[in-house]
């Protein structure tokens, strides 16, 4: 199952990438599980996505909770709390 993952703002800089297509291992079916999976890459990933870091997430361009399900073809985004206005 493939999803498109995007990163914005400070998170994009910390990870050194604006996004990628990734093949999800079986068992990774929610945003929380995906975050944990990415954190498992270690290094900058482990630091930037650590449990204590406030990170907002979206699925298909709608804000979503960590428990939100993800499915093949989804566009998932991770980003810091927003600061517009």
């Amino acid at each position: 199952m493939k999803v498109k993952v995007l990163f914005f703002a400070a998170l994009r800089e910390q990870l050194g990438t604006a996004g990628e297509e990734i093949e999800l291992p079986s068992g990774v079916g929610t945003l929380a599980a995906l975050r944990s999976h990415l954190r498992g890459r270690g290094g900058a990933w482990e630091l930037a996505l650590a449990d204590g870091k406030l990170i907002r997430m979206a699925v298909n361009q709608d804000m979503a909770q960590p428990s939100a399900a993800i499915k093949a073809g989804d566009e998932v985004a991770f980003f810091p709390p927003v600061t517009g206005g």
Partner: protein
Amino acid sequence: MKVSVQAQDFDAGAEIRALSRDPKVGAVASFIGVVREVAMTLEHYPGMTERALQRIVVEASARWQVMDCTVIHRTGTLLPTDQIVLVAVASAHRGDAFAACEFIMDYLKTQAPFWKKEAAGWVEARASDDRSAERWK
């Protein structure tokens, strides 16, 4: 209802006048956010930003009598005194116009995917903005 995410500046006067052409409109409330003190660059999530702003406007229209509404948010590099955001709401009476305008700003601050970066680094989100949005629940 008009939502625009754009690099270029806007003419707030013209936008407000455009909202008061309908003779049924009795009140237009507006808010303009301005860059304070230091230059910044605004990043956003193209696609989601417009979608989030549309949702906020729809939600405001469900809660108050909103006859028309304009939300413009700029992106890119902005300098002190530059305009960042305009929210303008037209209604029959001031109560709905004021409330809807403030609601849209509060939700924009916590729901619309924009991020400010200054020379000193990324601007941190404020807990007070979360509290401002919470009070509408």
